[in-house]
């Protein structure tokens, strides 16, 4: 039976893994290859590298690290951040990443999803959605990485998720902003609602603080995978121990 996936997300800037509070005051926490290998050895099922390197005027971001990561990793990985075109995606996939993830650029230009799926196949194309809880339902936000630009994208989350998969997204990462960074658990209600509309794999993001939160999100929201960052980086949750707890709770997991 298909295992549920545990996915650590690493923020990368200028080829190094960084940590910061809400996209500010980033400091280097480690070498990208060492951290990738560490998570692989701890039993991560997949890794996401979120490239937060600011794109210099008219120049492309240096992503030579992607090939170095691909050389050492024998598990799949996805690169997110700053992918605005088929050419951007192609360079990353050719360097050895399995998947690319698009967020704000897909909101600016939804046909980017069609173009990526047509060129590389849906299985390579992940759409990330930052979703905020509103008075009625859920709303998509964009440019959430930049406090000065962040805004409502003018779409409901349900409508955008449906459109993204119809355009060829092979996986959806739903970042529930209200629970993000709070460590009180994933937004089960929202994820369960989106699950009902989502035919492709759905990845929960935002809110993980304890092993029980992972058990809950798999059992109650039936997501395919759960993504987390700070609880893994801080060592508060060790992936091996998390996986033991998940198996004990009857969740299908790769040891």
């Amino acid at each position, binding site marked *: 039976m298909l295992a549920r*996936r545990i996915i650590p997300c690493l923020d990368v800037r200028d080829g190094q893994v960084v940590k910061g509070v809400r996209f500010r005051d980033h400091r280097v926490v480690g070498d990208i290859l060492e951290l990738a290998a560490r998570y692989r050895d701890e039993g991560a099922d997949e890794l996401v590298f979120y490239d937060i390197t600011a794109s210099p005027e008219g120049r492309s971001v240096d992503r030579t690290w992607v090939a170095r990561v691909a050389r050492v990793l*024998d598990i799949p990985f996805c690169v997110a951040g700053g992918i605005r075109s088929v050419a951007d995606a192609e360079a990353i996939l050719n*360097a050895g990443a399995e998947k690319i993830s698009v967020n704000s650029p897909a909101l600016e230009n939804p046909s980017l999803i069609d173009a990526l799926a047509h060129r590389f196949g*849906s299985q*390579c194309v992940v759409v990330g959605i930052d979703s905020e809880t509103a008075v009625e339902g859920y709303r998509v936000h964009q440019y959430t990485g930049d406090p000065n630009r962040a805004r409502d994208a003018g779409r409901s989350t349900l409508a955008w998720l449906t459109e993204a998969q119809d355009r060829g997204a092979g996986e959806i990462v739903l970042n529930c902003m209200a629970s993000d960074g709070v460590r009180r658990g994933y937004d089960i209600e929202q994820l369960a609602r989106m699950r009902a509309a*989502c035919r*492709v794999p759905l990845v929960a993001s935002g809110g993980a603080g304890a092993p029980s939160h992972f058990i809950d999100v798999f059992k109650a929201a*039936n997501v395919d995978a759960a993504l987390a960052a700070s609880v893994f980086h801080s060592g508060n949750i060790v992936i091996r121990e998390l996986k033991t707890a998940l198996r004990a709770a009857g969740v299908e997991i790769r040891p």
Partner: protein
Amino acid sequence: MTHTRSAKRNEAIVVVDSGGANLASLDYALERLGVRACVTTDAAIISSADRVLLPGVGNAAAIMSRLEELTLTPVIRALSAPVLGICLGMQLLFEHSAEGDTSGLGLLPGRIERMAATPGRSVPHMGWNTLKIERDDPLLHGLSNDDWFYFVHGYYAPASASSVIATVEHGEPYAAVVRHRNFCGVQFHPERSGQSGARLLANFMTANT
């Protein structure tokens, strides 16, 4: 890095440059096994190789038309060395694919169909899964039903195909490992399946069939 013919590379082990986006991950997996494969579309090199790997990511019709434009379909069909199709490369070994309604290489009997999403089952089948091994094969030497492999696919070869060596379950069973004579294939990605995947690739490099 570029994937062109290089004098330093071992021309006995060939990866067919089928045009998919992630040839690099297979190349690196072989590198970790100490194998410097030759990634090529050169018919003469492919024909004289000891081992031929046929990866594939993307769209079946697009890759078949690329292989036809390069006049590689008769070259692959005529191979007597061991051939390993990976993911879409495995599916292309069959007679026909519903993905783009295209003929395949026709080396294995059967047709590739589209997986339907049903409640409780996401499509594509994406993630780690185990096999149910139906019969012994040198490709699976040292591997068991407890080994995990990484799958990503939305089309499938039926579990009933005569070439099936192992199946995988995602709502229903599908072909996961197939073989007919020297032509074998795996639906999963051994290059991204940890130690189990590395073992399978090593088996392919050393088995005598």
